[in-house]
């Protein structure tokens, strides 16, 4: 379990990083926290010819809070979001709560938010969060910068819409108003493991009725997904145990996950039901 040889470039600016990438194309790979990439390189499942290290690029470790959105830069580590205090409102709460569930402390110390999103594991907390909030991914290359919506970004397991010469320089998330209630529930076998199934919800309530509902699921498909079935059930109804149970059932009936060593497909369906219900209950209490 020793990695294959590679060339190493420690970029000192984004310009330098993207120009190396544009020169080398898919021979090169960006390394951020390395918490997924190096493990894969140790198994020789990834063998980039060149590693472009962005850890010393100034200006990427910023959380930029705007009027109605926040941009999380490419070197913002999981731990910083978990500790919180920078992103206001329900979004900050959700980042802290979900961030706490990303791997273990040493992993969170080094791994990055953007790295997770670029890695595109469908059971990653941040990928599910990006799907939940229709995040926009800021991709930068020598050709300029573009914003990719979450819906288009996650192509399949470990595959995104990023071109080989693009760097994910930031992820833009909408801030959530105080009317929003956020909930998070995941099921994993051990502390720190990737979830088998995860549900994240953001619900807006006005006058005792749900006016906007977002429900996102991880671990049930090749990408993090929204459950439009559950969302449809929720909107217009009063929050409460029965509503949540119906939404959970709708979510469960509309997923077609694959089985793996942690259980057959039906098991994931069971977990979807349980996690959606729990995340809603956590968001809104019993009613």
């Amino acid at each position, binding site marked *: 379990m020793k990695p294959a*040889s590679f060339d190493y470039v420690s970029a000192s600016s984004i310009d330098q990083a993207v120009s190396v990438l544009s020169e080398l194309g898919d021979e090169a790979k960006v390394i951020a926290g390395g918490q997924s990439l190096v493990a894969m390189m140790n198994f020789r499942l990834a063998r980039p010819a060149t590693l472009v290290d962005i850890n010393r690029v100034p200006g990427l470790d910023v959380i930029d809070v705007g009027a109605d959105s926040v941009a999380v830069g490419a070197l913002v580590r999981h731990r910083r979001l978990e500790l919180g205090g920078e992103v206001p409102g329900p979004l900050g709460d959700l980042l802290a709560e979900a961030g706490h569930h990303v791997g273990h402390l040493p992993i969170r110390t080094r791994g990055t938010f953007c790295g997770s999103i670029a890695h595109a594991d469908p059971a990653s907390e941040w990928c599910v969060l990006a799907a939940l909030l229709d995040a926009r991914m800021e991709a930068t290359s020598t050709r300029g910068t573009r914003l990719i919506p979450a819906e288009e970004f996650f192509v399949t397991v470990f595959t995104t819409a990023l071109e080989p010469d693009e760097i994910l320089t930031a992820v833009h998330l909408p801030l959530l108003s105080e009317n929003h209630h956020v909930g998070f529930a995941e099921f994993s076998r051990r502390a720190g493991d990737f979830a088998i199934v995860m549900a994240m919800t953001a619900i807006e309530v006005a006058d005792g009725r749900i006016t906007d509902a977002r429900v996102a699921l991880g671990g049930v498909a090749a990408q993090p997904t929204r459950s439009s079935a559950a969302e449809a059930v929720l909107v217009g109804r009063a929050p409460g145990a029965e509503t949540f149970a119906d939404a959970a*059932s709708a979510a469960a009936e509309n997923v077609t996950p694959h089985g793996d060593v942690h259980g057959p497909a039906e098991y994931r369906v*069971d977990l979807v039901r349980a996690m959606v219900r729990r995340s809603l209950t956590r968001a809104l209490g019993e009613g």
Partner: protein
Amino acid sequence: MLVGSAVPRTEDPPLIRGRGSFVADRATGAWAVRFVRSPVASGVIRSIEFPDGALVFTAADLEGLGDIRPMLHRGDYAPVAQPLLARDRVRFAGEPLAAVVARTAYEAEDLAEQVYVDIDVEDCVVDVVSAMADGAPKVHETDLGTNIAVDARVATPGVAEAFTSAAHVVEVQVGSDRQSAFPLETRGGLAEFDPRTGRVRLTTSTQAAHVVRTAICDVLGIPERDLQVIAPDVGGGFGQKYCLAREDAVVTWLARRLERRVAWIEDRLENFTSAFHSREHQYTLRAAFSADGIMQALDADIICNVGAYSCYPVTCAVEPLMAMAEMPGPYAVREYAARARAVLTNLCPIAPYRGVSRPVITLALERLMDTAARQLGVDPVELRLRNLIDDFPHTSPTGLVYDEASYREALRSAVEAVDLPSLRQRQAELRERGRFIGVGFSTFSERTGYGTSAFAARMMDVTLGYEDVELAMDPSGNVELRIGASPHGQGLATALGQIVADRLGIELAAVRVNHGDTDRDPFGWGSFASRGMVIAGGAASLAADMLAEQVSRVAAEMLEAVPEDIVLADGAATVAGTTVSVLISEVARTASHRRDLAGGVQGLAVRTTYDPAGTFSNACHVAVVEVDPDTGAVTIERFVVVEDAGLLVNPMIVDGQIHGGVCQGIANALYESLQYDDDGNLVTASLLDYLPPTIAELPHVEIHHLVTISDATLTGAKGVGEGGTIGAPAAVLNAISDALSPWGVDVNQMPATPSRIRSLIRGRHPERNNTR
């Protein structure tokens, strides 16, 4: 008195300072060996190609060397041979095909990628049912002509009659998935050729240095004096490092061939695919009970999937045969029949792991007890009390003699410790609110410290059993105890030091225990089977008494007294009842440097041996769990152990053994499973899929001790190394089944994963999706 007190371990200082010396630590700078392993489970090797001039070695290079062929002298055993590198065909995915040698581990891995292996893939067998079916592909051509490596039976005369006349017949089927012992340090061997002497020094992460030496010398055809085997600091073994690693033999051969210093440090992926696996047992147990709940007869069908080869020296038959021999466990049943089979498959070979078959034996018996209790309408604790052995010595239907123990008392204490009545009340209240807790008991015996007589009954080529020790005092009054046991974390050096120091009246710091070096230590069988304290401890106590006698004789001469009056304590030899004394260090100096004044004592050195028949520790474990019926998740709320391991030489170390053992038992019960696909590929070969628990998954283990001193051991100590692992799974699965009793769900297969629990619930209650 040091014995009985929780003195801090003498092993620890280097380990906490980062100055431990594990094989990989000693191997820096050596040429790296890497094994190219079979990517398929079964097939014929057509060719192996590699770059010209590269240091790549295959079976062709090893021609003339022997195979590893552990033997059991019984007609129902079919011996199988394991070549050092696969020759002609491969029998499991992960089997070594070639060894490459390069300057660094990185370069060795680069080179291994350039070795092209052409294999004609053939059908494989991965499970016991297909392996035993007619026309199944054969893993080996054996004398028995099937995939069955051992097929043994026992029966007492009255079994059939007992079943016919039984008031109740109860049946359970239980099993354990494959598991990895998962020592945190993987395996590895460093072989160093000494051009001056032609000898090789093999430093290997093993539990039994002498056994490795014999095995390797046999296959390489060299005399034992040409090989020194050293077990350095060993990062856990638990059985995986007891049996011979064929890779160690290859590394030794490479050092001789290349006249170099070469090292193989296994990586975690190899450790999963190729280091011995464990368990994978399926048992069917039937019991005949009288109307008043006394077990009259027991019938066991035992099937073990042992993988592709037989492990040296204990053979692949050890697990089914142990299950057959020890199945009645702590229960006093008279009539007993069993059939035990070891089935060869195209999977990684199995070797005993902490507890060997006993975790599954205990699971089977304890699930049987709970199932019977329900069927008979008797309280499960009461049913156990009616059947536990209480007359000592007790002879089991297979002829094992149980020395005095505290089976019933342990169970009663456990019931009290958890306050069973209030637990039951809480259980009822929580159920009302849709929460499901359960309590599970596991009462068991742990056969420990058995010597040659017990092993001779197994009819292995190699009869393990005794322990030799040497003890010598140097002229400064320090002693060195050299042992054949090979501890690796159990704290044996400290505990033996306590025994020796007490008997010689010296400080613990004056005792050094040397182990794991075949040049220096007497022949011994290493560390396994909870034997270190009982056997090496017994031998050490004998040796210490012998040495004390020599010291006393010299001291008597110096003090003009008689040896019988000399008391050794606090570093001095004193004439009893007086203040006349001499320092032991002076006695030691006199014995070496002034032989003329030593009263005829010819040096302060002794050698002795101890070889007991064995003893039974016992314990009762109780688990209190909560099961989440929506997800199938199990949380262990409380875990209580009432342990009787006789005299506790060092209670802190004993408790540590129990903590660790219970943790591995819970891992077996809930988390760990090695799974293969139908083509014989391991699909759980990383720590993302194979799940040793972290602190977050484990309960605080609460320990209570009972102390039965039996005359079966010299020191009064019984073995305790495996008990935690043996008892915990049954307690956990009983507790889960108890929690889920309103759902009518019984959990009999380990690990009881959330997904398995959910399927059982779903199977019973398809309409109930959620409770909350």
